[in-house]
């Protein structure tokens, strides 16, 4: 399967990115509590995007519907994945469980589950007074830009021979020839994409806040007629898009019998508008 280039609409293309330093007053405030992670700001925009999940059309598997996805407001997302040392502070504070993989310094934290990522998110928000959260699948794909791949798909199912889709998917995956690459690299080792976001689709897959879904698609191939969410499983993004149970920390043991498992599981966060009142209260000693 080829890359799914994101069709960026509007004026988001080049001038869009602003790398946030520790220059704004709000960041200085946050920085007084915990060093603020480097952020990339992406302007709002729309792009062509295959929905995450499993889709049925007239009772048979179909390719994920492609929709015009929209990121409605400027998106502030961490330039790098959360590092082992950043995560370690949460562990030291007693708010996060130690990761499965002992890492250090400017290496991405790995061996963390969706539950761990949420715990870190809550802790970081409390520390900084800002609201941090995992990106949605749409937001991640938007930030990933040309490095977004999506699911390794078998295309539309043949009602007369379901195995054709399984074989196609298996062969597509095999032909990618991606070798396992389990050793995390230092922050930035996989370079930045066209939007200035680093280490997308390297060897650490990232948790998102989007739940796994089974959906029935209308005859137009796009509209969702009905769907059932399973929020015990979340979308994981990286070299390819896959789905993992919330408690999995090692993608290797989470993969199905014929799937390519992620080399590692980590995450990066997006920052909501800074909550000035809360940050000020925290600074004054009220939590």
């Amino acid at each position: 399967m080829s890359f799914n280039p994101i069709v960026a609409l509007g004026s988001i293309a080049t001038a869009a990115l602003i790398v946030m330093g520790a220059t704004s007053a709000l960041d200085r405030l946050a920085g007084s509590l915990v060093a603020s992670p480097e952020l990339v700001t992406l302007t709002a925009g729309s792009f062509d995007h295959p929905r995450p999940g499993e889709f049925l059309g007239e009772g048979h598997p179909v390719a994920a519907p492609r929709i015009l996805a929209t990121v409605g407001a400027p998106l502030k997302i961490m330039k790098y994945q959360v590092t082992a040392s950043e995560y370690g502070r949460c562990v030291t504070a007693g708010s996060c469980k130690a990761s499965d993989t002992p890492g250090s310094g400017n290496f991405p934290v790995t061996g963390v589950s969706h539950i761990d990522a949420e715990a870190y998110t809550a802790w970081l928000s409390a520390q900084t007074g800002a609201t941090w959260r995992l990106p949605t699948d749409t937001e991640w794909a938007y930030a990933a830009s040309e490095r977004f791949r999506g699911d390794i798909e078998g295309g539309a199912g043949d009602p007369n021979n379901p195995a054709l889709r399984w074989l196609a998917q298996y062969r597509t995956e095999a032909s990618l020839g991606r070798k396992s690459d389990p050793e995390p690299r230092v922050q930035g080792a996989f370079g930045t994409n066209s939007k200035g976001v680093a280490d997308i689709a390297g060897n650490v897959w990232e948790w998102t806040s989007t739940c796994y879904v089974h959906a029935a698609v209308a005859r137009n191939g796009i509209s969702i007629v009905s769907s059932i969410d399973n929020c015990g499983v979340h979308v994981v993004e990286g070299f390819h898009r896959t789905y993992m149970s919330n408690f999995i920390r090692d993608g290797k043991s989470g993969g199905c019998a014929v799937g390519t498992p992620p080399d590692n599981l980590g995450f990066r966060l997006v920052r909501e508008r800074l909550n000035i009142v809360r940050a000020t209260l925290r600074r004054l000693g009220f939590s």
Partner: protein
Amino acid sequence: MLTRREALLGTVLAAAAVATVGAMPAVASAKEVVGLPREKVTLVAPPFVHAHDQVAKGGPKVVEFTMTVEEKPVVIDADGTQLNAMTYNGSIPGPLMVVHEGDYLELTLINPDTNTLAHNIDFHAATGALGGGGLTLINPGEQVTLRFKATRTGTFVYHCAPGGPMIPWHVVSGMSGAVMVLPRDGLGDDKGKSIRYDRIYYIGENDFYIPRDEQGKFKKYETAGDNYDETVKVMRGLIPTHVVFNGKAGSLTGENAMKAKVGETVLIVHSQANRDTRPHLIGGHGDYVWEQGKFANPPAKDLETWFIRGGSAGSALYTFLQPGIYAYVNHNLIEAVELGATAHFAVDGTWDDDLMKQVEAPRAITS
């Protein structure tokens, strides 16, 4: 506890013992063998098997094979874990050798001087001299030729057995393979009716015992000898760190998945030189299974899972009826998924709705 020095000394003592055995008189029937036709076979690496007739043409012959022992580091999982492997002909498992009942299997075993250890070969298909182990011990820089008569049909393990504590260590370092002795008129079903296979795959299963460092990471060693002490400690716990097919977790998946078509009959030969295993074809069956691997016994029919005793090779015959991806696993599923014992078949062909159909796709439960 044995030190490395003592371990290597053990090899020397074994070599001395073998020298005595080697001094025994030659077998009397050797002259009769001289006049037989000879065939030289080039071995191929598993899971493939060298070309062979299922039904023997003509009378007994001498089938000549050559294998070179290679000691070399190999990677045994996706994390890059390294085994200081000892191999027959460079592969784990060693190649499958096929002959017919009444043939003579003649193996030239070469131990190049680039190796550091003494090796030999014990054929479970052979009679006498510790399966040939007593006549084949060679030091680096030596070669030896052994001939044995294939008197019993079936699939049989061969492995290295250079004496004392060296035996299990060499075996769990990769030194095993299998021989298949076919009945002269080919395979027969439970009623003796002739059956054939369109494809044959040979799967060798290995249990590995890699020591870990203080952080729990697998250790790497310069040479095989360096790992001996610590490896034996792990071995004595009897819990392998890896259970794999074809020498490496994932070696028979993806681009290397085994291939078949709907309607084709596949013979799967499965050996395990050291430890019990229980092969299972997910979504398929064993139409005819020689669990113990010996063709003089009628095959069991319609098995879901079959049991291969440690130190034996069994075989299962199956005609694929549906297309798709099949996982062939050791059905201790912890060993299959966590430790590596999973292979795949990619099977092309037409789906049979009569055998299986999704009557209704997943949807919300209606109350």
